[in-house]
């Protein structure tokens, strides 16, 4: 029989064994596919933020590294020089300005926070009482109580998250410089190897689109970060002219929320205004603080100076998309996700716009089909 099939008995046995093993492996892989995705998810949690931050850092530092590289210093060495200069700069700043007492400030804020909330609610209920006199039908809405409960639960959340985020920040301080070092050194090689995977027919197109998109993206990211930084510094300076406490924290909040267009600046000024109202009262200082937030930072600096210079029109998002991005970002990564959701949406937007532009100028249909509709 073995001579009929052309195979010896041993060969048949090996064939059976191989087939059985193959089928068993297939079933095992298929059944464990969900486990694999779970494993993959667990392995990559917490990597998203450091990777994103190091990408941003490498985008920011790239021009500086380039500056040293132009002086005929090799790239690795110039990255080290830049790192050294950055740490020296931060050290010097801390030495001159003095380390802001973050921990003390946060602890004081923790103690003060309920007071601010209750005063704000008191003030709101006063407003509500006036409103009820004129519009009796809103009596049914217990707005003050609802506000109190939500703000208290929000504050509890922040208290819970603080120690955990301290650990996170520690690991970020270690991971981000490491990742961004490699991104800075090898970004071209990484991108080249990814692009070289594209099939020959689309290669030229992908290369061109990549060149456009990366140019736009680097400008957008640098612009946004610089904008937030400048706004933060200006608000810090403006607030330190008054007697308000927690000026550095308020400036950080204002700078970070400034990354979110339309809604961000509004949210960012609320804590400052509440603290000013409670601590300083409705005096000249309050109006000055309001002026710093709205007139100086937002209208004059941001609208008339920074946005026209730093940010191109290409990256403008429709307000609807902004709100959607904030909600989705918040669902995925909490407060951090709300802040970075909009920039990520803009990045996706820029990519799509560039591809669309490319397709229009280069007319894909004519490129790959002849006029007889035959694929070339």
């Amino acid at each position, binding site marked *: 029989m073995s001579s009929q099939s052309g195979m010896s008995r041993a060969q048949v046995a090996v064939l059976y064994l191989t087939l059985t093993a193959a089928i068993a492996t297939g079933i095992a892989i298929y059944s464990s596919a969900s486990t694999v995705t779970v494993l993959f998810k667990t392995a990559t949690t917490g990597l998203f933020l450091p990777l994103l931050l190091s990408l941003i850092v490498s985008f920011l530092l790239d021009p500086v590294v380039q500056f040293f590289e132009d002086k005929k210093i090799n790239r690795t060495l110039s990255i080290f020089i830049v790192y050294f200069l950055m740490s020296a700069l931060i050290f010097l700043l801390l030495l001159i300005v003095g380390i802001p007492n973050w921990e003390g400030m946060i602890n004081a804020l923790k103690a003060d926070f309920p007071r601010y909330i209750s005063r704000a609610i008191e003030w709101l209920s006063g407003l509500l009482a006036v409103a009820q006199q004129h519009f009796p039908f809103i009596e049914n809405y217990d707005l003050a109580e609802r506000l109190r409960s939500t703000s208290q639960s929000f504050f509890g959340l922040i208290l819970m998250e603080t120690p955990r985020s301290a650990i996170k920040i520690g690991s970020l301080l270690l991971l981000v410089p490491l990742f961004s070092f490699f991104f800075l050194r090898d970004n071209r090689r990484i991108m080249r190897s990814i692009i070289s995977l594209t099939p*020959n027919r689309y290669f030229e197109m992908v290369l061109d689109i990549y060149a456009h998109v990366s140019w736009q993206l680097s400008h957008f990211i640098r612009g946004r970060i610089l904008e937030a930084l400048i706004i933060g510094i200006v608000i810090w300076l403006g607030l330190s002219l008054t007697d308000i406490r927690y000026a550095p924290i308020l400036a950080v909040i204002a700078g970070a929320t400034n990354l979110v267009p339309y809604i961000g600046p509004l949210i960012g000024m609320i804590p400052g205004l509440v603290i000013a109202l409670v601590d300083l009262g409705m005096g000249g200082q309050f109006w000055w603080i309001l002026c710093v937030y709205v007139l100086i930072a937002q209208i004059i600096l941001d609208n008339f100076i920074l946005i026209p210079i730093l940010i191109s029109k290409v990256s403008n998002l429709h307000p609807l998309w902004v709100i959607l991005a904030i909600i989705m970002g918040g669902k995925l990564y909490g407060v951090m996700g709300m802040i970075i959701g909009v920039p990520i949406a803009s990045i996706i937007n820029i990519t799509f716009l560039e591809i669309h532009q490319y397709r229009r100028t280069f007319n894909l249909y004519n490129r790959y089909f002849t006029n007889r509709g035959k694929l070339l």
Partner: protein
Amino acid sequence: MNPFWSNIFRSNGYKQTLAYFLSTIPMFKELDDRELGFLENIVHVRNYEAEEIVFSEGDVGSGMYSIRSGKVQIFNRDEQGKETEQALLEVGDFFGEVALTASRPRCASARTTEPTVLVGLFRSDMLEAVRRHPVPSAKIMLGLNRVISDRLLQCSVQLEDLKQQLAASQKQADE
């Protein structure tokens, strides 16, 4: 030569490298070893199978190719789809260099006739190189200029010949 020494001073090994191949192309003749190394990092090596279209007429081109191995046929296609071969290029030849500096439509199609390795130099990489490494880029651009000038000169000589032929044939027709 003693095989031991010839193994150590492997002169053939260098001829296998991409840098050596690039140095044989007229456009890159003026580059020294260091600059060839730089060029090596901005070109893309692409592998093609036989009968594969590299680009077709009317595409907006984005760079030039040189042939490392294999053959490439340059052809035009008329309204009826009939192909006329313009040239059959071999190892060391290059094509599409007009698209290196500006996005102009390709004036002919290119197709490989056998499994081919092409070395592509593209506009986006070249523009970045001009910004970052001006000296080698200037040399490459001068080489490109030289090649295109040569072709222009050739063209005008041919045009002059054709004009004289035309004048001669018109004179014949008049007589």
